[in-house]
């Protein structure tokens, strides 16, 4: 049995594409045949659950019973990776709670692998977030995700502001999610299927769908680039067993 891995995907602001990132992560691990489960904290609606109903459970991360559901099962679940999509505004409180229950200590002692995907928004508030989050993260793998799917410049016009926040944390890695054509993006939303399923031209039941080849091509190209970013930061090595995969094969 490998060490369990917990991946938090969060931001303090809504609409920065947390769920998009969580979906690409689930697709990424699925393609590598890494057993995975996910928790969606957008209780009670659950955006993530709409796309990945088989592996996703909707929870309220601030409630103790649901915390037990997530963290007490880490040792027994067959899933090697647990992805938690943290609702807007709950990243810091969640990290606080994790610190209180001793989860962060367990991560420090190497009993489990802990990674945080911090999705950045376009405001200064979102950058200040980094400082706040960083104090909890410690030894965890901390990924700052610049999500260009909704076209943000991330203060690149002002290097001083940018550097003051981005280089605060040592070992923080930057991940860039490239832009996906709006129409392709919307079409996947309408289909309510994982990106990989859309690329393979299937519907939620696994039957052949009738999606535009051009849109599928754009999604495949984009997903390939996103996964290349995950490969670059050696995300798979974090989780352990090495396996070859390629986005073209699933297509």
């Amino acid at each position, binding site marked *: 049995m490998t060490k369990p891995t917990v991946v938090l995907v969060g931001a303090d602001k809504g609409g920065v594409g947390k769920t998009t990132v969580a979906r690409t992560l689930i697709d990424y691990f699925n393609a590598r045949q890494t057993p995975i489960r996910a928790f969606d904290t957008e209780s009670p609606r659950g955006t993530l659950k709409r796309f990945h109903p088989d592996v996703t459970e909707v929870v309220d991360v601030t409630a103790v019973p649901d915390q037990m559901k997530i963290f007490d099962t880490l040792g027994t679940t067959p899933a090697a990776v647990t992805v938690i999509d943290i609702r807007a505004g709950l990243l810091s409180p969640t990290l606080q709670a994790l610190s209180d229950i001793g989860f962060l200590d367990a991560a420090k002692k190497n009993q489990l692998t802990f990674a945080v995907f911090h999705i950045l928004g376009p405001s200064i508030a979102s950058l200040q977030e980094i400082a706040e989050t960083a104090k909890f993260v410690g030894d965890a793998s901390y990924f700052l995700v610049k999500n260009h799917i909704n076209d943000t410049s991330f203060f690149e016009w002002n290097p001083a502001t940018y550097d003051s926040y981005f280089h605060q944390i040592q070992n923080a890695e930057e991940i860039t999610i490239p832009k996906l*054509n709006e*129409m392709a993006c919307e079409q996947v939303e309408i289909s309510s299927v994982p990106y990989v399923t859309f690329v393979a031209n299937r519907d939620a039941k696994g039957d052949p769908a009738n999606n*535009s*080849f051009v849109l*599928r091509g*754009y999604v495949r190209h984009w997903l390939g680039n996103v996964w290349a970013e995950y490969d670059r930061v050696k995300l798979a090595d974090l989780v352990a067993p090495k396996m070859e995969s390629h986005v073209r094969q699933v297509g």
Partner: protein
Amino acid sequence: MPFRHSVNIVASPRPRVGKTLIARLLTDFHAHEGRNVVAFDLNAGEGTLAQFLPQYTKVADLSDINGQMALFDRLVADDGVTKVVDLGNEAFEQFVAVAGRIGFAEEARKRGIAPAMLFVIAPDRTSVEAYRGLRSRLPLVTLLPLHNELLGHAQHRDKYPMRGTEAAMVHVPALALGLRRYIDQAPFSFSRARLAAATDIPLDVHLELQRWLRKAYLEFRELELRLMLADLQSSIRLR
């Protein structure tokens, strides 16, 4: 996967090398061979394929995603229809970029469609470099240099290296001087019915046109055989 039908892309990054005339010939050739054929016109301005062969041609536009869907979704459609693309110089870059990004050739091959690009050769650097770039940008598109003999003797053919069994220069014979004006009045089809009914064409011109068409069609037939043979060989090798 058996070879079903082909997509012929007539291309050049240069204007005025005879792309549209070749696309007209190819479209009429496929129709003459009894195939269903659709042509896509990626040109702006006068004397376009859509004006010459309106019954076969759809005007395509790559500037937005709706246009890209209308073109590429149709090109990879498994509908048994042979496609001809008249790729104008202005759309060349965009076409290659989009086709590469969405994996057009891979998808086409997967569906038993053979995409071939007939690249009109010219001595200028833009053409030579675009041709060289296509190898890596669209590796699964069969790249065939095409010599339009109207442009004179091709002394620059060594700048256009070829690869694979299907590789051979395609020649489009030059039309005798003074005959251009009979065929440059849009709309115009080279179909037998159209030529037979052409009262405005003198008999000697008519005969010369027929001779020219036969030569061009012979080239296209040989081209098809080479593509089929290459496809057959690669499927044998795969097994």
